Each structure stands twice: as C-alpha cells, then as structure tokens.
C-alpha cells in the first residue's frame, strides 16, 4: 500500500516537474520568436548590460548611493492586496507586455515558472551576472510602477 502511494506520489511529482519544464520551454520559445520578429534586438547570449536602458530606480538615489526619493509606504503591501485593484493589475500587465523580451523571459522563468538561476543561465546561454542584472531591471520596473501608483493613484 505504502509502496503504491509512494509510486503515485513520485509519478505526480515527475508529471508536475515536466509540466513546469514544458511551460518554461513555451516562455523561451515565445521570447526567441519575438526577438527574431523584432530583428534589431540581441539574442540572450549576446546581451550586455549596456544594451538596454538601466535600472528603473537608478534616479531615486543621490551620487552617494543613498535614497534621494525613497519608496512610498504602500497601502497595498501584501500580495493579495496588490492584486485586488483591477486598474493596478491592468497596468502591471501592460508593463509586463512592454518589457524587452530578455527581461520578460528571465522574470517569467524565475518568478512565475520557478526555474532556478542555474536552469535559466543554461537555457538562455546567459552568464549568472547578466541574468541577475536582467532580473533586477525587470523587477525594478514593476516596483517603480506600484510605487508610482501608491503615490499618485494612477499608473
């Protein structure tokens, strides 16, 4: 009985793991197709930090590296409350759709699909440091949007 349950659990685990890999593969293929369609954009392996606009929060610091314009205290500071506002959810989706394919892909693989950094670097032929920079830029864009929304009530 226990053996059967264990076997069932293992096959379910393997199934989930394969679906995750399969979903990740869709993200990667979609990104590569977009890069090809846009033509001018660089493939992951050729990407350099200076190829795209930098960190969305860079202008929030002074030349000493201290906050010049610190983040707002968000009223919506739980994941649930962040997603409750439909207008904000729409804006977040817009920012996701407008992201450079490199940023969107790394963000989706890491934060939505749950790929490890090692997997992302292997799949996209990226160095670990470039993958970190790309992910930081993607997350910063989303943070900036929510912060702006909290300050002004609009996106």
């Amino acid at each position: 009985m226990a053996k059967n349950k264990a076997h069932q659990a293992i096959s379910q685990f393997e199934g989930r793991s394969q679906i995750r890999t399969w979903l990740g593969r869709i993200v990667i293929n979609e990104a590569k197709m977009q890069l090809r369609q846009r033509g001018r954009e660089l493939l992951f392996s050729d990407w350099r930090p200076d190829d795209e606009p930098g960190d969305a929060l860079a202008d929030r610091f002074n030349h000493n590296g201290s906050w010049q314009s610190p983040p707002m205290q968000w009223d919506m500071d739980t994941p649930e409350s962040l997603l409750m506002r439909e207008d904000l959810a729409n804006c977040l989706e817009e920012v996701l759709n407008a992201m450079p394919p490199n940023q969107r892909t790394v963000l989706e693989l890491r934060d939505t699909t749950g790929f490890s950094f090692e997997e992302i670097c292997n799949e996209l032929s990226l160095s670990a440091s470039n993958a970190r920079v790309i992910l930081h830029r993607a997350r910063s864009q989303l943070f900036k949007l929510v912060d702006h929304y909290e300050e002004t009530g609009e996106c």
Partner: protein
Amino acid sequence: MLRCREVIDNADQLLDGAINKRQRLAIKIHLLMCRHCRRYVRQMQALLCAIPFMHKKASDAEVYLVMEHIHEHQAYPP
C-alpha cells in the same frame, strides 16, 4: 558600511536566498539602520509573491492548447 544603492542591487539575491553569509550579514546590518531599504525589501517581497498572479485569465483557446498538451503528455509519457 553598504550604501542603499548596493543593498537594493543585492536585494534580489537576498530574497532569492542566493547570497553568502558575509553579504547577508552586511545587508542585515544596513537594514537595521535604514527604514527606506527595509521598506523596499518588504514591499519587493510582497510584489514577488504577486508576480505569478499578474497575468490575466487565459483565453479559452490558450486553456485548450495547454490541456491538449497535458493530455498528450499523459497518453504518451516519455
């Protein structure tokens, strides 16, 4: 002593648990003293938990495509 900018640049790795003990300690010491960076890290953490749910509901066609692949996968396991 780390600067705020450095803390924010390394906050992703802190939240991912991909940071060595010395870096973690340096960031924690900074966070004890800097409420702005504490706020950033706390709010970024909430944002990261929300990211998987930021996508709109999939269309019927997208759901069908995914279900079809899952059925295919179950019928012909590797």
